[in-house]
């Protein structure tokens, strides 16, 4: 029999239903795997008491699932063990958003997304590491240290990597920060899992959960999925409730799953999504049976290839894979057409005005008064300034300051209003293409495969931002996008393709994503060199 941790959600669902194994056994197998993979730093490890409380919760939920199954009352995700990105508030379980400022924050409520998952019978394995407040593309901005990808370049010796990983983990504990630990090449040859949902992607790829929740503001589901050979979908803005999810940029944030197959993403998204009176931007639309859509195929669909995504200096491997993806869809009966999205190049700069502006406003709540870290000061303003200086990391401070600047008197029209106008134009580009009868758009997911820890963005933040060049347009237009693994590059690292859909038509993305997955063949995930 396949190892329990190597099952897909669909297979685990069948096995639990047939009583081939129990939810408790399934949870135990994952808890054991997580224990051996501690050094990857995918799961956040809070205080021993918290860790104990999470374990008790895991097994209590698994036991409840076993009882439901015994009574024949299994729900859609009954007994399925999942990892939860630490951006989702979980009642009674510390939720840090990857930040020091929320280091002790224990929400007295449950986010709508996680509530929906538990209501459908899922089992919580723990909270997953992430870039601080979801700001980052490599998981290196987390206050709790970087996540190490389970992937290695083909020419890296796994034994050597395991030794490096272990000493890096020790250094990280000793120095407490990435920059100190990274000095002297502590992470040599170890790769980033992408970000901001780096813990989610790494945990799914390393078989430390059957699926994970994630969030995507500019590419934070799709880029880490592409870097780790996993599937990730950012649904249409408004499909999934944002209530109880720590806010970064409210008009761009959207939650979705990261899983090992397209089918599993369809299963998970159906449970995550729901109308929600607590989020006024969450739509009152019925949630379709996404899983039923995966077998639809693409016969008769029109798939657009946007010429503006053929950027200067694109690697021939990415270009080749993109071409291959179009051929797969054509072979399955789709019509491939070239389309134009003329404002594509302005999406990333416009994003770096809109997202920081919204972040500066959303993060104003961390003031050292109502919750979170507090540094005392001589007066209230001094208290705010010192608390925020001590609690936020560099990337977060930088973005809050950019946001503050572009919203400040005299600059609001020149920056913020202009960026919002660009957003209208970006959205209009997509609407015009869809009006021509195009059902979905195929693009590469990322401009490269995963890079090394400490390799990018130390001098110029824009170098890191460019990771999101293919994904950010989708957030700006509020559309759904899925990243599906499509092959390996010459270094043996995964590359993904992205499909962009019409608003509230995730079903077509699942159908076309399944064609890519079937054509490319499931990616063989790495052996557990870290264990």
């Amino acid at each position, binding site marked *: 029999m396949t190892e329990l941790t190597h099952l897909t959600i669909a297979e685990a669902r069948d096995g639990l239903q047939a009583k081939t194994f129990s939810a408790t056994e399934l949870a135990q197998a994952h808890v054991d795997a997580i224990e051996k993979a501690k050094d990857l730093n995918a799961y956040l490890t809070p205080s021993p008491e918290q860790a104990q409380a999470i374990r008790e919760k895991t097994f209590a939920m698994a036991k409840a699932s076993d009882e439901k199954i015994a009574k024949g009352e299994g729900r859609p995700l009954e007994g399925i063990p999942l990892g939860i990105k630490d951006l989702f508030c979980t009642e009674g379980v510390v939720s840090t958003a990857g930040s020091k400022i929320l280091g002790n924050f224990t929400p007295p409520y449950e986010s709508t997304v996680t509530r929906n998952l538990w209501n459908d019978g899922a089992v919580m394995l723990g909270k997953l590491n992430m870039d601080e407040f979801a700001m980052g593309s490599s998981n290196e901005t987390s206050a709790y240290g970087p996540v190490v990808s389970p992937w290695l370049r083909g020419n890296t010796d796994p034994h050597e990597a395991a030794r490096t990983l272990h000493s890096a983990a020790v250094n990280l504990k000793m120095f407490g920060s990435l920059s100190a630990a990274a000095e002297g090449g502590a992470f040599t040859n170890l790769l980033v899992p992408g970000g901001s949902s780096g813990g989610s992607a790494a945990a799914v790829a390393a078989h430390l959960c059957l699926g994970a929740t994630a969030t995507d503001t500019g590419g934070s589901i799709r880029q880490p999925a592409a870097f780790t050979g996993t599937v990730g979908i950012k649904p249409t803005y408004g499909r999934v409730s944002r209530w109880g999810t720590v806010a970064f940029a409210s008009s761009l944030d959207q939650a979705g799953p990261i899983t090992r197959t397209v089918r599993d993403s369809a299963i998970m998204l159906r449970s995550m999504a729901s109308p929600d009176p607590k989020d006024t931007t969450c739509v009152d639309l019925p949630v379709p049976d996404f899983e039923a859509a995966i077998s639809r195929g693409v016969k008769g669909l029109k798939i657009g290839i946007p010429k503006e995504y053929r950027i200067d200096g694109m690697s021939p491997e990415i270009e080749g894979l993109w071409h291959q993806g179009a051929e797969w869809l054509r072979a399955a009966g789709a019509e491939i057409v070239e389309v134009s999205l003329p404002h594509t190049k302005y999406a990333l700069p416009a994003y770096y005005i809109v997202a920081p502006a919204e972040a500066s406003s959303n993060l*104003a709540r961390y003031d050292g008064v109502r919750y*979170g870290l507090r540094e005392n000061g001589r007066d*209230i303003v001094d*208290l705010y300034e010192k608390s925020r*200086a001590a609690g936020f990391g560099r990337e977060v*401070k930088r973005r809050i300051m950019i946001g503050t*600047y572009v919203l400040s008197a005299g600059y609001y029209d020149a920056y913020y209003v*202009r960026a919002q106008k660009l957003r209208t*134009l970006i959205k209009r580009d997509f609407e015009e293409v869809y009006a021509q009868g195009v059902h979905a758009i195929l693009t590469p997911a990322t401009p490269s495969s995963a890079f090394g820890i400490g390799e990018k963005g130390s001098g110029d933040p824009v170098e890191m931002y460019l990771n999101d060049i293919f994904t950010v347009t989708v957030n700006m237009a509020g559309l759904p996008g899925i990243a599906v693994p499509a092959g390996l590059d010459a270094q043996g690292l995964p590359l993904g393709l992205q499909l962009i859909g019409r*608003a509230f038509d995730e079903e077509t993305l699942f159908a076309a994503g399944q064609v890519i997955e079937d054509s490319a063949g499931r990616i063989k995930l790495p052996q557990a060199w870290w264990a």
Partner: protein
Amino acid sequence: MSVDEKTVRRIAHLARIAVTDEEVPHLQGEINAILSFVEQLNEVNVEGIEPMTSVTPMVMKKRQDGVTDGGYPQKIVQNAPATEDNFFLVPKVVE
């Protein structure tokens, strides 16, 4: 457009983030790198274009104007660093 050190300090104060003398030049460099990156938006003619204010065209959901939740002040303040009698404590603001 680019910012000088004085402006960096002013933004930091507006954002209520204390910055050290050592941090200012770094922040200045990084902020200017981002500002020069977004400069390219000026190439686009946005004359007559409406700024996007709603991602999905939809009517704002409304609910009855009534109390639907509450009555648990201890839960509200449970994560606060300093409280007294279910109030948040701050340094003296008014003399």
